[in-house]
């Protein structure tokens, strides 16, 4: 995926989102992405990600991921008003230790595709994990609350999910400031904000 004339950066930082979308194979209308450096070898991070059921540990808004077979998985994601969105994802590319790409199966509420690349960081500095998600914001009522999930949030969501991935793989736990306070509304063991 290269869509720039003069820049070596990933597509997700394009000033013009249309240019970025044209450079992808699909016909999605929006692209978000994020790179995080994780102080672990490529193969280990790939293996963690490739077993999709692991991702519930680090993805805050995912309720459940059922691995159907080697290529197909079923995702259940929390949506506003206590509802949830479900879809099937199909693996389209799989290069062990290097890359996993997927797209939503036919008939998904939100057409989306994504890829996560595992790149060597500078020697001794682990792996750069680069996630790029392209999606097609839907219309209609369903679109409104899905938009909430996918249009404003994906960047924040991707950023936080990758940060949790880093925490989990580097420290063995997902960092939390779960603590008591004098706010009655909060459980001491639940994280706020």
């Amino acid at each position, binding site marked *: 995926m290269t869509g720039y004339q003069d820049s070596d950066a990933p597509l997700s930082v394009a000033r013009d989102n249309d240019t970025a979308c044209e450079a992808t194979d699909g016909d999605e209308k929006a692209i978000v992405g994020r790179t995080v*450096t994780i*102080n672990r070898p490529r193969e280990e991070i790939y293996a963690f990600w490739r077993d999709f059921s692991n991702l519930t540990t680090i993805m*805050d808004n995912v309720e459940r991921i059922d691995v159907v077979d080697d290529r197909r998985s079923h995702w259940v994601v929390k949506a506003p008003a206590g509802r949830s969105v479900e879809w099937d994802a199909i693996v389209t590319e799989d290069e062990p230790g290097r890359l996993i790409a997927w797209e939503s199966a036919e008939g998904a509420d939100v057409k989306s595709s994504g890829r996560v690349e595992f790149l060597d960081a500078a020697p001794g*500095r*682990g792996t750069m994990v680069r996630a790029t998600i392209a999606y097609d914001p839907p219309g209609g009522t369903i679109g409104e609350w899905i938009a909430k999930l996918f249009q404003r949030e994906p960047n*924040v969501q991707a*950023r*936080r*999910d990758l*940060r*949790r991935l*880093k*925490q989990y793989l*580097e*420290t*063995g*736990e*997902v*960092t*939390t*400031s*779960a*603590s*008591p*306070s*004098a*706010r009655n509304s909060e459980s*001491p*063991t639940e*994280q*706020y*904000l």
Partner: protein
Amino acid sequence: MRAVTWHARHDVRVDTVPDPEIVNPRDAIIKITSTAICGSDLHLYDGYIPTMRAGDILGHENMGEVVEVGSKSTLKKGQRVVIPFTISCGSCFFCEKQQFSACDNSNPATTSDMSEMLYGYPMGGAFGYAHLTGGYAGGQAEYLRVPYSDVGPIVIPDGLEDDKVLFLSDILPTGWMGAENAQIEHGDTVAVWGCGPVGLFAIQSAFIMGAHKVIAIDHFPTRLELAKSMGADVLNFTEVDVREALFEMTGGIGPDAVIDCVGMETHGAAIDNILDTVKAHTFLGTDRPAALRQMILACRKGGRVSIPGVYGGMADKWPIGAMMEKGLTIRSGQTHVQKYTRQLLEMIGEGKIDTTFLISHHASLEDGPDMYKHWHDDQNAYTKIVLKPGMTPGPVRV
């Protein structure tokens, strides 16, 4: 449990709150035996630090006894430990470089967005210091949850009482790193702005590192007296023009290194400081760096500027010309506490460093709100306050 909590600017209370629990495998729970009020707690008290929420438990200079451990903690129940104010995972790129306060994992994903927007990259976590640094509860309470307890806490040998080691949690390593960042060479003259706890420890550290002369600057007589007792020459900025005084006292060369132990709430009535105060309170700018401006002008050509003082936002009228034309080196940062605790504990054990001279008052948690008020209003008499949860209410002069 009882805990000292922040509710609004100049509104600190003691509340009954739930006890902390073990959440992650590397956690430990500490029963607090001593917890100090820090100068940087005044920045919270004065409302200078954004992202405080009503009900947050204060306190980042903590020590106590281990009462509960997670499955992957290396601590044992009953051990006495001092807890660094910085929370560090020990395994990220920054921790491996011993830049512990820059830990990339200790600020939770949900709170690290804020500092990423403000500073470009997320800050590490810290106890009791607003949600920018993770929203962790502080230790001015009966108990404290300590994440990554296998990395931060330092175990204290029997026979060293709390008052001798408590300051390993923050101000002693902060003063030490402030002096280390000044890259002191034998024969150097070092000027230290601010004779609060960090300033006094920076003076002590500068002498240990080989400074020929230390010149300390403040306006509280008690604090200048303490600086003098440590061997420093002193300047009261209400009596003399500091820059001219430093010029004359160094024979027209200027101090080789300058250390800012003041931070964002400079005292003094210089015109730039008055303008900065107005701006800070109208949120047109957050920091009042009058001391730092003076320091950059006073420092000798090719000298070093060390900034352990806390700043949070933007500052106006930064003397960039003086900085560049004189070729100054600037080093700063939140303290990498875990890097220094072992070495400093040894020096305390050997009697090379004393920290007890600083403490002016012991008090109970219940006295917390009063103590904040005194710490704010009477910095001459209250040089350092240590809260002891078990103590009978009513402060005691040490």
